[in-house]
């Protein structure tokens, strides 16, 4: 309230005798630290999307993508692939009767054979796939209907499978091994390939059934309970999946390394597909010598033991033969996509360059319109 010509600046003066200043000097100053972090003055890189940076970026993307696209496209085109549908939908197709009559309840197997002709020889290793269409391996209830602990050989899960396996958890009071819908619907057609040479004799083509599963699946993820010996004993208290004809320890009785949960056909099936149309590796046809083609051009017969019904849900079954390059199987999309994106980038770069030159309003001088 005192009216006086008080000057606040005086306080900062060196000769000032005000007690307030003395007090302030003693009490700790609350002045914030003068660090670059606290004062928000950190050294920083401040990129700006200028013509000098953006346009070259477009050209660089174009320059990289177009050659890659060409390379991918050429590689993909060099890969040979043959596909045959053997579902037997049409009345004139060889498997029509099998497809029509067959159901899971049939006790006898039905066989049919499909003839086909390879126009070009398959030079390197040939991979044989079976393909299914309209088969929803990616359905949520399907995907979760498995017990990974059981498949890992966990004994408690063997006797007491996860609830996720319902309704394929128990059968006749016994726990199912392997439980769940995925295992239950194991693809069980048998495919055999014969080469028919010019004089009409059939020659069986050896199909390798090992090495078709992921290494980690085969060696880590899937394990037989109590080791690979005496599988019969291990699975004694278990029932086979409802749809299976034989128990899990009978999948490949010839090879103990490929029996039970670690059967590779089983493992391949258990790796569910992402999309309703999918293919799975079935067998490998190894290249024998460098001189002869693995599969020379000519006529072939595919012998099918038709066990797997798909017509009920309008599914399709295919057999695919394919060679492989460094980038995998035939894949025309990737090459075309790369070519397209690369060209678009290049084109965009040109267009933006023109726009930039024509309409650029920015002055390079330091003037700022305010």
């Amino acid at each position, binding site marked *: 309230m005192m009216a006086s*010509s008080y000057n606040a600046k005086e306080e900062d003066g060196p000769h000032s005798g005000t007690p307030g200043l003395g007090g302030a000097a003693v009490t700790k100053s609350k002045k914030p630290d003068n660090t670059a972090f606290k004062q928000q003055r950190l050294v920083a890189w401040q990129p700006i999307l200028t013509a000098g940076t953006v346009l070259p970026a477009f050209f660089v993307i174009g320059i990289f993508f177009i050659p890659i696209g060409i390379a991918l496209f050429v590689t993909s085109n060099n890969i040979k692939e043959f596909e045959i549908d053997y579902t037997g939908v049409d009345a004139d197709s060889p498997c029509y009767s099998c497809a029509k009559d067959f159901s899971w309840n049939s006790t006898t197997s039905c066989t049919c054979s499909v003839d086909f002709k390879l126009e070009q020889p398959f030079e390197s290793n040939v991979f044989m796939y079976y393909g299914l269409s309209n088969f929803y391996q990616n359905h949520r209830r399907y*995907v979760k209907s498995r017990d990974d602990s059981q498949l890992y050989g966990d004994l408690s899960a063997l006797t007491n499978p996860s609830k996720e396996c319902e309704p394929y958890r128990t059968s006749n009071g016994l726990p199912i091994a392997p439980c769940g819908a995925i295992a239950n619907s194991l693809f069980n057609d048998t495919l055999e390939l014969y080469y028919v040479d010019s004089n009409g004799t059939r020659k069986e083509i050896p199909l390798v059934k090992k090495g078709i599963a992921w290494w980690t699946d085969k060696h880590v993820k899937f394990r037989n309970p109590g080791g690979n010996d005496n599988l019969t004993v291990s699975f004694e208290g278990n029932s086979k999946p409802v749809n299976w004809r034989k128990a899990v320890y009978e999948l490949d009785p010839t090879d103990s390394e490929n029996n039970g949960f670690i059967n590779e056909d089983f493992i391949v099936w258990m790796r569910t597909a992402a999309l309703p149309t999918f293919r799975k590796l079935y067998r490998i046809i190894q290249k024998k010598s460098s001189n002869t083609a693995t599969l020379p051009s000519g006529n072939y017969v595919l012998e099918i033991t038709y066990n797997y019904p798909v017509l009920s849900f309008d599914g399709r079954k295919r057999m695919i033969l394919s060679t492989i390059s460094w*980038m995998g199987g035939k894949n025309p999309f990737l090459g075309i996509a790369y070519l397209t994106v690369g060209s678009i980038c290049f084109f965009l770069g040109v267009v933006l360059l023109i726009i930039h030159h024509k309409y650029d309003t920015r002055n390079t001088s330091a003037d700022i319109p305010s």
Partner: protein
Amino acid sequence: MFRKRLPPEEERRVKANDREYNEKFEYASNYIMTSKYNIITFLPVNLFEQFQEVANTYFLFLLILQLIPQISSLSCYTTIVPLALVLSITAVKDAMDDYFRHKSDNHVNNRQSQVLIRGLLQSEKWMNVRVGDIIKLENNQFVAADLLLLSSSEPHGLCYIETAELDGETNMKVRQSVSVTSELGDNLSSFDGEVVCEPPNNKLDRFCGTLYWREKKYPLTNQNMLLRGCVLRNTEACYGLVIFAGPDTKLMQNSGCTKFKRTSIDRLMNTLVLWIFGFLVCMGTILAVGNAVWEREVGSLFQSYLPWEPPVNNFLFNAFLSFWSYIIILNTVVPISLYVSVEVIRLGHSYFINWDQQMFCSQCNTAAEARTTTLNEELGQVEYIFSDKTGTLTQNIMSFNKCSISGQTYGEITDPLGPQPKSLDFTPFNPLADLDFCFYDDALLESVKVGDKHTHEFFRLLSLCHTVMSEEKSEGELVYKAQSPDEGALVTAARNFGFVFRSRTPGTISTTEMGRPVTYTLLAILDFNNIRKRMSVIVRNPEGRIRLYCKGADTVLLERLHPCNQELMNITSDHLNEYAADGLRTLALAYRDLSEDQWESWSESHRSADKATDFREDLLSAVYEQIEQDMMLLGATAIEDKLQEGVPETIAVLSLANIKIWVLTGDKQETAVNIGYSCKMLTDTTEVFIISGHTVQSVRQELRTAREKMIQLSQTTDGGKEPGMEGWGEPYLSGNGLNEGQEGRGEKQMEGSLPPSSSCVMDNISGEFALVINGHSLAHALEGDMETEFVLTACACKAVICCRVTPLQKAQVVELIKKHKKAVTLAVGDGANDVSMIKSAHIGVGISGQEGIQAVLASDFSFSQFRFLQRLLLVHGRWSYLRMCRFLCYFFYKNFAFTMVHFWFGFFCGFSAQTVYDQHFITLFNIVYTSLPVLAMGIFDQDVPDRRSLEYPKLYEPGQLNLLFNKKEFFICITQGIYTSVVLFFVPYAVLSDATQSNGVPLADYQTFAITTATALVIVVSVQIALDTGFWTVINHVCVWGSLCSYFSIMFVLQSQGLFRSFPSQLNFVGCARSTLLQPIVWFTIALATAICVVPVLAFRFLKLDLKPQLSDTVRYTQLVRQKKRKPAGRNVGGPWRGAGSVSESRLGARGGSRRSGYAFAHQEGFGELITSGKNMRLSSLALTSFASRHSSSWIDTLRRKKHTHGHTPASASGECSPAPSCVSGSVPPLSNSCSVLGGSQDMPLEEEAGTAPAQNTLSAPAPSKETTSASEQEPDSAEAHTE
């Protein structure tokens, strides 16, 4: 709490010293509680409050859904963990806040006060004080409750209080007890009077009650009340009876309830969350319909491989479950981490505010403080600032700055840019000088030393003509008690220049003139009031000559001068104009020699007027008018109401940033307007409209008139000199405003240049307008239908000043703008009277000044200097807003990109709610993989450095217009997100469906697909954040690269064989990352997807930047260019605000012809009477002992006489209650021609009490015509010289 159930009080009965009697009414005790929780209620109440948030409830709902196994498509820990995190963080924060409120409540409640219990004074805590108790207050103590003043240590039961905490008025006020109780002194233990009064209310200036004591009734008014929050000053002790306590006190009634503040972004966010929820339901419905179709067409047939789960027996039920499953999966479009992140970012910004050195005041050792951490980005959107005046804009320190003595001006600092000259040292010349006084022009001191007659007379006047009290504790140690700081400054100035006011008695004034003691006989004080705008004293000097000394507003004083002063008057007028242009408060000084006869005859008429019972005020002022004539001009003074440092610059910068500043002050109109000028809110080119009507009709009319005029003026300025220009000024000079308004509008429509809707017109108005509105007019303007009218008018103005407003009105004005303009408001103040305003504005800023800490406690941000506001808004606010917007844009983009992939996948998995990604990825994506880069951007990003945003205030505009994040931006973001999700799903789909690994194993298995998509997603969003980040500090680098690394490392760890062996069923992705990411084709896919996602964004941004750059982009670009050219940072480039900068610079500009007289009208009338009556003379003071011997007879006589008359006219002792309208007719001085020219357009103060609308119109009308003519003549000063 339970009190609320009591019926509302109709009247209050309080009996002194009778607790039993008073207890039966159950009045509130003096315990105050501002906290919300206690230990027991905290958890339920806080949880209840938190679940009132839409988002929290939504997540709780999701959590419940996830617990149903048939629906649960994600395990529930994906929701539980983040939700618990959010709730607990918020709870801890709320608990901390409330803890501090408890602490401050406790502090206040435990203050000690002395209570009279059973005849004994006992120390009692504030909270234990009851209604009906008698409290003893001592000097400088806070008043504990609303008290009825019973007696005081001072004579006549007077006591002085400072009400700054309450209403912001800093001058002292006098309160007086009812005479019967004041006679009791401190023997109050037997006092058993009963008070019957009105129930508690929030009206600070009104109290109505009756005291019943000893069978007699005594009326009580506000004049008898001491309100809680006031401080007792200059009074040794007083006793009061508690009438209202605790929550019933006027202080508490005036502080609005604590409201939870939200930012507009918060509200927008909640709306968007609702929209997204709607979107979610749509998506869910689409997918559920898809599911129904699929289950019917395909799924039912597929049952041999995949039977329906037991409770499901038809496809419709399946679809219903699928709907909820999808709701769960897609809920990540609004992840809970959004809320956590927003809080974290705001907290970071708050810390930056706390840490800012440039908002640290070294004088008071206080750093800025963000007290609320949730409002930061709102600081970047402020459109209206409501500021208190005293203590906020000004320091409330008056300094004698310049003066003009008989045509010679002193105090001008010649070189404003030069070094600060040394303050004069008065001590060798004058031992009685005040050491704190500063004056820089030694010419004045020389003039005094030389013995210049005029100078001596000038300071003699200053030492005599005032109502200041002095206290001389020991010889030479003078303390002046002035009831307005202006007067104190003047008397102090006189003291330092050798004319020391020592002491006064009712009949004498003793001074020491140039070291020589002189005693003047005080014949009369012609007191100040708002209409007279001047005060005079008539003294007889020791030689026996009688002289009248007068000081007052130049407008009223100059026209009462003797004609021979013409020449001097012209010069002095020029000086006054200069002072006024510098924003100083000016005062003209004059004297008149009176002969003994003149005095005798006048004093006779004075006496008769004084004795009159009816119209005493009018009669007195008429008598005063008689004698204050033919005066001789002495000179003029200029007092600087010291603004806080950098206030004009800050206001200039803020208004360049398109922020409108309203000053709401409890102070008087003149003071407020003056400050408006000195802080450059008002300039000489501003057209000021004054609204001061007392009735609804007159206010309405004034508002309309103002608006019409604005339209006309803006029309003429817009359209150049229009032919109709001579015509329009005329009608305003006659007739009433409403008719003119219609006429004016008619004119417009004929011209057809303006649209008919007036609101439309008002929006487009351009021009320098300012509105000044008085508290009583404001009360009408805030009524029902007047609101829109007021808002319409006020918002067309560049500046609005509301004076004499109550705390509640301040809040009402803020609410009004909030309601009508949908704009973000900020209130800044320093006193308790600003609390309600601070609370009701979107953002409350407290200035931690001298006026206590109530404002700071209620505020959201606090610092010690008004000028920090510019940094708070333009730098911190702007950055916060920018960062928050960028954060939100990116966040929504990211989550849509992340989530919508599931939608597309639905079409390929039978709408079964299968997720594309691994569950762990879904849990970690928002919390770990992508949280830090976006947080780093949200906390550290800067588009332009702080210096630039102060240099180009226009950079602030995007925030006000809400350009950076609004519904449109949101849609752009989610569109981009959906586009990305399409790319992220369909590119891997197209590539992988047929692809195989290089060993022939197909790639189209679910896990490979999941990993490819997830990796592509992480990379795409990282590239996107890299594009969005404009300010790459080390931390940003660490976060971005670190997040990418963490993604890969966590993925490899989770898919490692070691962990798989421990949790085989949880981590079934074992080995997947390795076999997938070793495939070149997977990387080609990811690169392709990234390119497709980023290229369009890049092209679009480049085009936008290249063709339509924002100001910030340009500034940024310019900076880059400058850095490249290695030019020194051009400090003289741009800086558009610099021109409007400091006072010294603007002095060089043109000076308007306006003059504002600032007779400190913080002044109050009635003090003169108090002085002459001797009521406020301290019996104990030194002065009395030294003068009693000589003047005892007259002193005691006067005392006796006044005491006698006092009983009849108690109201006249105070200026506050004087009925204003009665004195209008007689005392409004005629507005002569010369006056209107001299006074210029700022002469409005005159009408403050005049009130009626026609008067208003005639007064304000000449202003524009004068304005235009003087504008054409370019030099207003010369124009004046011509006229005169």
